[in-house]
């Protein structure tokens, strides 16, 4: 009897924690769809607020997607070759480089943004363009791409595969494009989802780096929280959820696939745990 009671107590506690995380999300969905949140559901459901948000803030959605996709492109171009290189170099130098590129994640976004403004704030065209925000996002998301690809390189032991390709006469670049790259796919997918998700939701850096002409979705959200009625702010939050929740679910699916794949291929711990994290 007692173990059952203990089980139910823990279940109730866990459900309580889930409720704490879910109820506020439901509240904002509800508030975004009701005519008047103060009166409650009695006032009726409406998509009026959503329409108003779209009219006011559609540009922020477009800019956020634009920056996220560019961010993905840049982290791929810079991160993929670097991940392979660091994996092959190994040793202390590679560790030190890896530690260094993680710094923008370890240091608060506010500090990184201030540093960028102090150094490049004087270059007017650069400061005023959305590329300024992109630079911040790339710094922040790059380590996730690099580490996610490196984790796959370690877990499938690409060096061994390359060894066989080399013994068959394949040169460096040939091995890179026909052996290494195709095998990186799961890491690239996981890293790409992480990069896009983090970029779409990034606020701390972006708030400092944006201008009135370059507002992203989270910046627009902060605006609406400060100046719009509760229903409009909630509807805008719903728009944000519609963008971010599918990405988060895809990330969960990929990471659970990863776990089972790594378990199948390497029963021992691969030594490079997946990176998880985000900004608040």
């Amino acid at each position, binding site marked *: 009897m007692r173990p059952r009671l203990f089980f139910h107590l*823990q*279940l109730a*506690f*866990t*459900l309580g*924690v889930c409720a*704490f*995380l879910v*109820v*506020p999300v439901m*509240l*904002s969905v509800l508030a975004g769809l009701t005519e008047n*949140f103060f009166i409650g559901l009695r006032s009726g459901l409406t998509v009026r607020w959503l329409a108003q948000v779209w009219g006011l803030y559609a540009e922020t959605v477009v800019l956020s997607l634009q920056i996220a996709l560019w961010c993905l492109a840049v982290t791929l171009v*810079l*991160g993929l070759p*670097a991940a*392979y*290189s*660091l994996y092959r*170099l190994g040793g202390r130098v590679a560790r030190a480089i890896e530690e*260094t590129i993680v*710094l923008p*994640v*370890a*240091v*608060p*976004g*506010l*500090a*990184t943004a*201030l540093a960028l403004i*102090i150094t490049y704030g004087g270059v007017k065209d650069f400061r005023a363009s959305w590329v300024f925000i992109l*630079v911040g996002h*790339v*710094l922040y998301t790059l380590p996730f791409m690099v580490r996610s690809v490196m984790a796959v390189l370690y877990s499938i032991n690409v060096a061994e595969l390359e*060894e066989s390709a080399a*013994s068959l006469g394949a040169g*460096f670049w040939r091995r890179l494009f026909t052996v290494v790259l195709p095998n990186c796919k799961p890491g690239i997918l996981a890293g790409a989802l992480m990069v896009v*998700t983090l970029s779409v*939701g*990034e*606020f*701390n850096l972006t*708030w400092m780096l944006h201008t009135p002409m370059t507002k992203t979705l*989270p910046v627009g959200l*902060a605006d609406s*929280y400060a100046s719009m009625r509760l229903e409009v702010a909630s509807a805008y*939050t719903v728009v*944000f959820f519609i963008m*971010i929740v599918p990405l*988060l*679910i895809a*990330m969960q699916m990929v990471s659970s696939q990863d776990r089972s794949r790594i378990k199948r291929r390497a029963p021992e711990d691969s030594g490079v745990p*997946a*990176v*998880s*994290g*985000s*900004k*608040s």
Partner: protein
Amino acid sequence: MDQRDDYPRLFVLVLPLGIAFAAFFLVPMAQLAVVGATGEAGLSAYLSIINTPRHFESMVATLVLSAAVTVAALAISTVAGLFLVRNRFPGRETLIAVLTLPLAFPGVVIGFMMILLAGRQGLIGDITKALTGEKLVFAYSMGGLFLGYLYFSIPRVILTLMAAAEKLDPALEEAARSLGAPAWRVVLDVVLPALSPGLIASGGICFATSMGAFGTAFTLATNIDVLPMTIYTEFTLNANIVSAATLSIVLGLVTWVALFAARTFAGSSVAASG
């Protein structure tokens, strides 16, 4: 395949990242540190965190808040995380998905959700008013900040803790139990020590994230100035770039040390901060 033959090519592959990173992070960061040291006060500007009462209070408030959030998040996540790792029941996967879903919610959104929960038109206010006649509103106080920080900490901590709990050896607990240890001693002497690397790692992440968090406090616009808010105010309202720079560097050091310590003691490398 000789490793040394490939060195020049491997160097070329890592070079673009190195150049971009140096130009847009290392150089600006160095400049930030220099700007902080070249104001009227010189290097001693870095002591403002101790000398200036406003900065000192802000630092203490942020440290206390982050420590409290870390303790609470660890306690909650250990109970829920262990439960989810140990038991198999229908709906378990859904609960795990729900607990880790808010992982990438930005702080501003979490601040807004705390307003919906505990603000002037909030759910908690409605419930307490119906029950006691008093409307309980605490979103804009330390309580609101605490709850918001807890909100973004739980998913991170629970992910790390569940990964650590999956590696526990059930045979050890079995042995302790068969030797007659009561349940609370098994938890205290076997489970928690075995979990400690995971606890340290996730505690470090949680503490660093809370120290650097900006969005939640920004949305709640409380009168309690957490350090990132103080930095923001110094920079935008007071145009005091030296103060903003020194405080940023100090804050950056604190979060980096917390994460580095967590990684060193725990041997795992999950990093996150904002």
